[in-house]
């Protein structure tokens, strides 16, 4: 054997062997593929909220079907009230607080076709708050054009006159008042979300005065659930967002272009999981940076043939990073999550988050129906179950109803599916 070749062979073998030896005995370096290790969370802060039924009290044999509620001082007497809609009798109801701490319910509209959402707004600049009602026509899945937008015109802070502003349209799930057109006389335009079923829409309706409106459809996807309004891009004009569920599972932003321009549809976030179950979208300044963020639940289970846990159900927030750009953050898991809302629940100066559950495993007594996530001030959230019973909440709002500076939570329950137990209608939760 040629001695040079032999030596080369030896050197190569040594290198190979040495290299392999090094590989075998090298100290373990941090594994870039290792699962991130979360630091241990502190014990969840103690929060105790005590329920009180307000409005029509549900008996054990009743099956309340509340679809939505809002805290609003409807008669502007300085005491926040609760307005809600329900689809058992197809009514809109006002739980008036007067005097403080005393709640009395009255029906302010009957025979509305499946009211799904209520909000209060002074549509015509009358100085009184009207009630905007989104009517689905039928709550359970249906693709027919049976939706409508009804405004309950506030005549004298006691009586309300229904006015149908839009009908024979894809099922309506949200309607809100907002001055999108820059009206100078107090008029408000309307933002309308239309779930439909296979087909749906999102539109805004320009207020022409005299209860005349001009519709502008800005998106034609099915499944719009909520359309919250805020100045998301910080230009001083209200914009609106839309949560589009069904097979899309997206959040869209419609920036207000100013006078004469057209709202442009921008997709700001979406899940690639077509079963994500988008169920609620609301505005809150989560990190208190002065920019409106979006809080967002996914837990819809209306369509499930097999009820039960979906691991992706939960709460998230979309951080407004300025100029209408958003960054997604998961907050936590919560089966059957609905109705995201925000308040400083423990008085530490940070925005905490709340959601309710309609479709948890109710055979498990440990399933939470009302959940809070306490903010550590750096948007690290610790989940705190607030209630396991009653069950099947589909709507909630947070606000200081008794004026003591501590927010209360109000929940509404939809008892459309078994088990028909632990029943409630409207519940006021006070912190102890």
């Amino acid at each position: 054997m040629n001695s040079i070749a032999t030596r080369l062979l030896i050197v190569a073998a040594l290198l190979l062997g040495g290299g392999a030896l090094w590989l075998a005995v090298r100290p373990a370096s941090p594994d870039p593929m290792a699962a991130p290790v979360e630091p241990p969370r502190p014990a969840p802060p103690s929060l105790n909220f005590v329920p009180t039924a307000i409005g029509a009290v549900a008996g054990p044999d009743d099956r309340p079907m509340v679809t939505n509620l809002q805290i609003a001082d409807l008669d502007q007497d300085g005491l926040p009230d609760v307005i809600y809609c329900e689809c058992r009798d197809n009514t809109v109801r006002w739980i008036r607080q007067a005097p403080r701490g005393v709640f009395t319910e009255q029906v302010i509209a009957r025979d509305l076709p499946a009211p799904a959402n209520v909000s209060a707004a002074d549509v015509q600049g009358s100085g009184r708050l009207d009630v905007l009602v989104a009517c689905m026509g039928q709550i359970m899945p249906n693709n027919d054009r049976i939706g409508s937008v009804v405004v309950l015109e506030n005549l004298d802070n006691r009586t309300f006159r229904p006015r149908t502003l839009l009908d024979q349209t894809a099922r309506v799930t949200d309607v809100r008042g907002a001055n999108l057109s820059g009206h100078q006389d107090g008029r408000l335009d309307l933002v309308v979300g239309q779930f439909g079923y296979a087909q749906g829409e999102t539109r805004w309706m320009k207020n022409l005065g005299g209860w005349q409106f001009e519709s502008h459809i800005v998106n034609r996807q099915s499944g719009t659930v909520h359309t919250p309004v805020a100045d998301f891009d910080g230009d001083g004009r209200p914009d609106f967002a839309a949560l589009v569920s069904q097979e899309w599972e997206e959040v869209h932003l419609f920036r207000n272009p100013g006078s004469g321009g057209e709202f442009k549809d921008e997709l700001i976030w979406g899940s690639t999981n077509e079963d994500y179950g988008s169920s609620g979208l609301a505005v809150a300044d989560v990190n208190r940076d002065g920019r409106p963020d979006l809080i967002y639940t996914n837990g819809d289970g209306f369509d499930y043939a097999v009820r039960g846990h979906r691991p992706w159900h939960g709460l998230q927030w979309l951080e407004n990073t300025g100029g209408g750009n958003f960054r997604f953050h998961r907050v936590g898991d919560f089966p059957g999550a609905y109705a995201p809302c925000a308040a400083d629940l423990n008085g530490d100066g940070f925005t905490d988050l709340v959601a309710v559950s309609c479709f948890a495993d109710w055979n498990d007594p440990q399933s939470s129906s009302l959940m809070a996530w306490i903010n550590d001030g750096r948007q690290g959230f610790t989940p705190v179950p607030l209630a396991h019973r009653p069950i099947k909440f589909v709507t909630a709002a947070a606000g200081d109803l008794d004026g003591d500076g501590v927010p209360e939570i109000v929940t509404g329950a939809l008892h459309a599916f078994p088990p028909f137990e632990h029943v409630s209608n409207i519940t006021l939760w006070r912190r102890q």
Partner: protein
Amino acid sequence: MSPRTVQSPPSRRSAIRPLLWILLAALIATGALLGWRQARLARVRAAVPALPAAVPNATLRDLLTAAHVGAAGGDLAAVAELGRLCHANEFRAEAEACWRLLIREQPREARWHYYLADLRRSEGDQAAVEEQLELTVAADPTAAAAWLRLAEMKFKSGRIDAAETGYRRRLELLPGDPYAELGLARIAQLQGRTAETLSRLESLLQHQPKFSAAQNLYAELQAAAGHEDLADLHRWLGREAGRFREADDPWMQEVDARCHEPRRLCHLGVIAYQTYQGDRGRARFEHALALAPTDPLPAEMLGTLLLELGSAAAARDILANGIARAASTPAPLHYFNLSEACRALQQSEPAHRALTDGLRVHPDSPDLLHAHGNLLKADGRIGEAAAAYRRALEVNPAFGEADFALAILLLESNRPDEALRTLDHALGMRPTFPKALLLRARLEMEAGRIENAGRYLLPLLKANPGVPEIRQITANWHLEAGRTIEKKNPAAAEQHYRAGLALVPDDPDLNADLGVQLLIMHRAEEAVPMLEIYRRAQPANPQAALFLGQAYAHNGRIAEARTVLAAGLRDAEQSGQTKTAQSLREILTMLPK
């Protein structure tokens, strides 16, 4: 003599030396290799997750144990099997540990990244999902499923250009793929290129008419363009196409095939069934039932599917066994479907028993109350039947079927006003409930309020423009409405006839009535096509010949008129229709020679 250079032969030692070096190197290499393998084994062993604690059944436990033994022995194929089993059966933490281990050991295998992406997707961890999908397509640029998911992620986070790249890459790999086409259509739509959106959707629907998401989007674009009828049609087509289904995903199918968790199998079975993969759905329900024979849910699902497929006897057996074996209370639908299966088999006593058994455990189930009401009514127990329907409506006021059944019962009991109120209640809760709309329309027509009937039929038609029965019923209504007003308002009658013919162009009566109406209005030329259709539909009807003959005659088509009238005369004489025969004779004599 010159000194000779004497070369000494190489010593044995120097000849052996290289061999020793080689041997030494080989020994080192072998040792190192063994050491490396040992270290890898230790690494793998250390990273293999512990077996999940709460395994729902022995089958899954055995499979997991077998895979775990192999994995603990350092067999990466066994680790992959363990990962798939854990992933499919919702042991997410264990599955994630397997995928991370495999990624470390086999970083170029795309599937491990893809599976990890899927797990992170379930957890809502968007950044990790995207990172893993990028690694997937880097490892395997032909991974079409990953390209689609990646494109969707980019699209849904507003990175349109990157999304377009992903969709186009998917299309290169799977030409004509509807998901990529839909993605590109949506990009065009978001960027305001409406013509391109429409053309992409039209092309997509030409090849994939059952792709519901595209039908729905196309319908709304047509509505936006003011083509409401076309929009209605595509809305209906979209609805008929069924639910949206995710794109086929061979890698995830490998995972799903390893599902042995009964509830998840039921969930997968429902998805398969709802997306027209009934065989796969059935297999999953059967597997779930075999794994959990005392869990009533798989039996309910399988029985319901079999009933819908028309296998009533098999459905009855599965459902009855499910109740007999149930370790927990079966759902109301379980009893209801058992009763329906028995009914389909004409076994009224077992059908009755299934409902009473169900009502014992679910006294407030609207479905059971309604079905029980039907059986009570069939037994002539009218009062009890009405009470059952009313109780069902108390529990669920939007239960249109109960309203409808009660309305029928009230009509049969000669209480029409209450029946109308009941139907109106049904329509208040479900405005397009077809049965209530049809019955309400029929009642209006029977009461002579023909125009009113349209209030119920037209919404039904709008919601179901492609259903032949509803088109025919609405066409019949147009015929009746036209006949009712043709004397007072011929123009309105003509509109009704034409609207009816738009729905059922070959309807003989509508063609006849419109043709005759036009004849009366001296528009014989327009009448001819309708009367020709009428004559073709009823060639032995002398009246059809009479009308068509007159229309021909008025248009100067004398020879054709004579032929038709003569034939009609023969038919009239043969069938004894003397008056018609007389008319035919008179017209024939009046024809110019």
